[in-house]
């Protein structure tokens, strides 16, 4: 698993308020179907911004951006995300 994937999953565990362990979810498994709420997705977004030292532009602030680990990774890659220390 890449550093980016590990960070995404860590952020989801910390801020996603999912009723299931993120470790049990495949990359393309629907996070909303697994209990991610709209409000929790906002927290995930803000925590990802902190973790990757970037800001999601308005164009990416939509449900589909956070619907799976894979979708989040693709969004981060489109923003040129790199894992920052700490």
């Amino acid at each position, binding site marked *: 698993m890449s550093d980016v994937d590990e960070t995404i999953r860590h952020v989801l565990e910390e*801020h996603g308020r999912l009723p299931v362990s993120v470790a049990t979810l495949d990359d393309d498994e629907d996070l909303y179907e697994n209990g991610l709420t*709209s*409000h929790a997705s*906002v*927290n995930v977004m*803000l*925590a990802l911004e902190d973790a990757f030292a970037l800001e999601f532009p308005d164009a990416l602030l*939509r*449900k589909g951006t956070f619907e799976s680990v894979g979708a989040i990774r693709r969004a981060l890659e489109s923003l040129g995300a790199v894992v920052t220390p700490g």
Partner: protein
Amino acid sequence: MKILVGIDVQPVDEVEASIRNFGGRYSRRLFTDHELESCGENPLTAATGLAARFAAKEAVLKILDTRETVPSWKAIEVRRAEGGQPEIVLSGEASELARQQRVEQMSLSLSHGGGIATAVVVAQVAEGQSGASR
């Protein structure tokens, strides 16, 4: 005339935690200046009002057809009318979606208790549109 209804609930403690974790970044991303002013500066009392407003935004999104376009949070605003009752004011993509769906009027009711804030939105929609209550 068709009537569509949207409803949502938001735990207040989740909003409190978000304010604690992310501060102004959280508030400014979701809420307009008017909404933030309406809820006051005390984080404890503000969280209840903000939770109700977040529920209202979600309730509106349950009425609008967001399959192709999801409006930004701040394009759905809760305002206080002169009489004190809350009302929905749409702008940008939210306003455009409502126009396309022929939403003619929205009424909003907010409430909270037991740590939960809730919002109900009732929309009057002209016949012939394609939206549906979800």
